[in-house]
């Protein structure tokens, strides 16, 4: 666990994209959360505080400040994310993406870029609704409220096309983004609305009218919370299904372990929310005495703050997960395909009984080392007792010597000190002893550069 946190920290420091992603997720959740909170939770609560207009106006003013700060942070971090992604996509440094038309190519021709353009338009439209939505006036038009809530949900939900959910084929191409959109909207409605809830609680408590406002808000938020948690759970299951895929993948990959930490944090948040609903909300609603109500309000506020902190940690993990290869790769993919060094010779040898990825590095005449990875037909790692490799030079006639391989800690087999006498079309043979009676021999040509 300590090494996981250390490597996460090192990754954070090394990768500015992580900061941009974390800040953008947090800012997006906050903006969408404030708007959804104002429409679904606070508007009825403000009507309940009719006896004290000042407290409702006070809350609206503070929510407006939070919304504008969130929107500004979302714009800055969104721009940084776009530039860093454009740089990574084109392979040019971040400073160069403005020239060469790279930025426009990304915006107009990639899924990520189009999602960013659409979200920019959504953010502008949302900004246009904010002054009226959070103005000092008490009564808002229903159309304004619906429009703002839909824009806020779309602004958060469209983040789905910035990450892993966008890439699927077949049924996954529909189900995975759909689940991710709902997941993001539900997260905004719950986690993003915690800070607005704290602000409302902080303003309430002085008199009956403000306590009435807090009561209505608590009941409404409780309903919103249950719907959100249910949605997060259902859609989180779909996402985990596509991105982790198996128990070993969850337990034995960095991606899987981080995802587990995220799930534990989520469950802790749900547990606090359950305490709020089962114990504190009834205390607030009983109206036995102002003192008892205030005590319940104070504890609800503290719990909301703890939930918000856990939510921030979840957002940081989400930001990191998006930059990592999903756990599903470790179990089901050919990892070497993604990481063949430029100076290596590589061949994938495929038989029904099993396959081998052979990487010879450097892949040119001279001294080299070889790495052999073995897979069964389902791309699961293939257990072997003993592995040896034979390299036959182009046009060789004699018997080439067989070189023993030793197994590394990561499961791959390693052959050191290979002498590649000449460039050309060599033949590599991998001899695998599976058990006492089963052997596997894989042969393929491999090109050695001069």
């Amino acid at each position, binding site marked *: 666990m300590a090494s996981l946190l250390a490597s996460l920290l090192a990754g954070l420091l090394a990768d500015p994209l992580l900061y941009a992603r974390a800040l953008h997720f947090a800012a997006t959740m906050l903006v969408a959360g404030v708007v959804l909170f104002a429409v679904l939770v606070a508007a009825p609560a403000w009507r309940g505080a009719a006896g004290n207009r000042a407290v409702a106006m006070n809350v609206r003013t503070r929510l407006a400040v939070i919304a504008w700060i969130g929107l500004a942070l979302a714009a800055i971090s969104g721009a940084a994310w776009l530039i860093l*992604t454009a740089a*990574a*996509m*084109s392979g040019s440094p971040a400073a160069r993406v403005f020239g060469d038309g790279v930025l426009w*190519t*990304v915006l107009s*021709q*990639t*899924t*990520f870029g189009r999602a960013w353009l659409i979200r920019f338009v959504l953010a502008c439209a949302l900004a246009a609704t904010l002054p009226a939505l959070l103005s000092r006036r008490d009564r808002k038009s229903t159309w304004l409220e619906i429009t703002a809530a839909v824009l806020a949900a779309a602004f958060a939900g469209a983040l789905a096309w910035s*990450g*892993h*959910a*966008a*890439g*699927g*084929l077949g049924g*996954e*191409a529909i189900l995975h983004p759909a689940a991710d959109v709902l997941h993001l909207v539900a997260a905004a409605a719950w986690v993003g609305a915690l800070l607005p809830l704290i602000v409302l609680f902080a303003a309430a408590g002085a008199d009956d009218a403000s306590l009435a406002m807090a009561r209505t808000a608590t009941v409404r938020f409780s309903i919103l919370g249950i719907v959100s948690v249910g949605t997060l*759970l259902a859609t*989180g*299951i*779909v996402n*985990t*299904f*596509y991105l*982790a*895929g*198996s*128990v070993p993948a*969850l337990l034995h990959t960095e991606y899987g372990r981080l995802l587990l930490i995220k*799930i534990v944090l989520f*469950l802790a948040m*749900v547990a606090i929310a*359950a305490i709020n609903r089962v114990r504190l909300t009834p205390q607030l609603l009983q109206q036995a005495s102002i003192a008892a109500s205030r005590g319940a309000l104070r504890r609800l506020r503290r719990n909301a703050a703890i939930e918000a902190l856990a939510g921030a940690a979840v957002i940081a993990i989400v930001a990191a997960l998006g930059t990592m290869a*999903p756990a*599903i*790769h470790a179990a*089901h*993919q*050919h990892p070497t*395909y*993604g*990481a*063949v060094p430029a100076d*290596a*010779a*590589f*061949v*994938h040898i*495929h038989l029904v009984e099993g396959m081998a990825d052979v990487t010879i590095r450097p892949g040119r005449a001279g001294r080299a080392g070889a790495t052999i990875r073995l897979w069964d037909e*389902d791309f699961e790692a293939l257990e072997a007792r003993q592995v040896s490799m034979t390299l036959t030079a182009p046009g060789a006639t004699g018997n080439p010597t067989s070189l023993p391989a030793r197994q590394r800690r990561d499961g791959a087999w390693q052959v050191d000190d290979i002498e590649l006498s000449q*460039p*050309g*079309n060599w033949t590599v043979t991998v001899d695998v002893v599976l058990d006492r009676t089963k052997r596997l021999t894989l042969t*393929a*040509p*491999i*090109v050695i*550069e001069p």
Partner: protein
Amino acid sequence: MRKFFLVVSLCLIPLAPVAARAHAFLDHASPLVGSTVPAAPHDVVLTFTQNLEPAFSTAQVTDSSGARVDQGKAQVSGNTMTVGLKSIGPGSYKVHWHALSVDTHSTEGTFTFHVGGH
């Protein structure tokens, strides 16, 4: 407490093994990775595990001397990438692909195939 265990067990449902995929990795190629084909193909077709971004996905084919034998820009459609070949003779050819998946992650790799009866 019963609710809590219900939540925990619900969370465990997705952990059943499935064979889903993510990120664009090479699924298969024509000519097949490492294969020997009797006659020179007109193009190399690469099929990936995810849809690709045409603007940033490329493939280059070189002969054993390192000279380019492809016809330039690869055509991308969904999860396949096709790159045309010049007329080539017997020999070994190296395909170097660079794929940008629609989920913004890029992967790359190389493989060889062989033309001719030796």
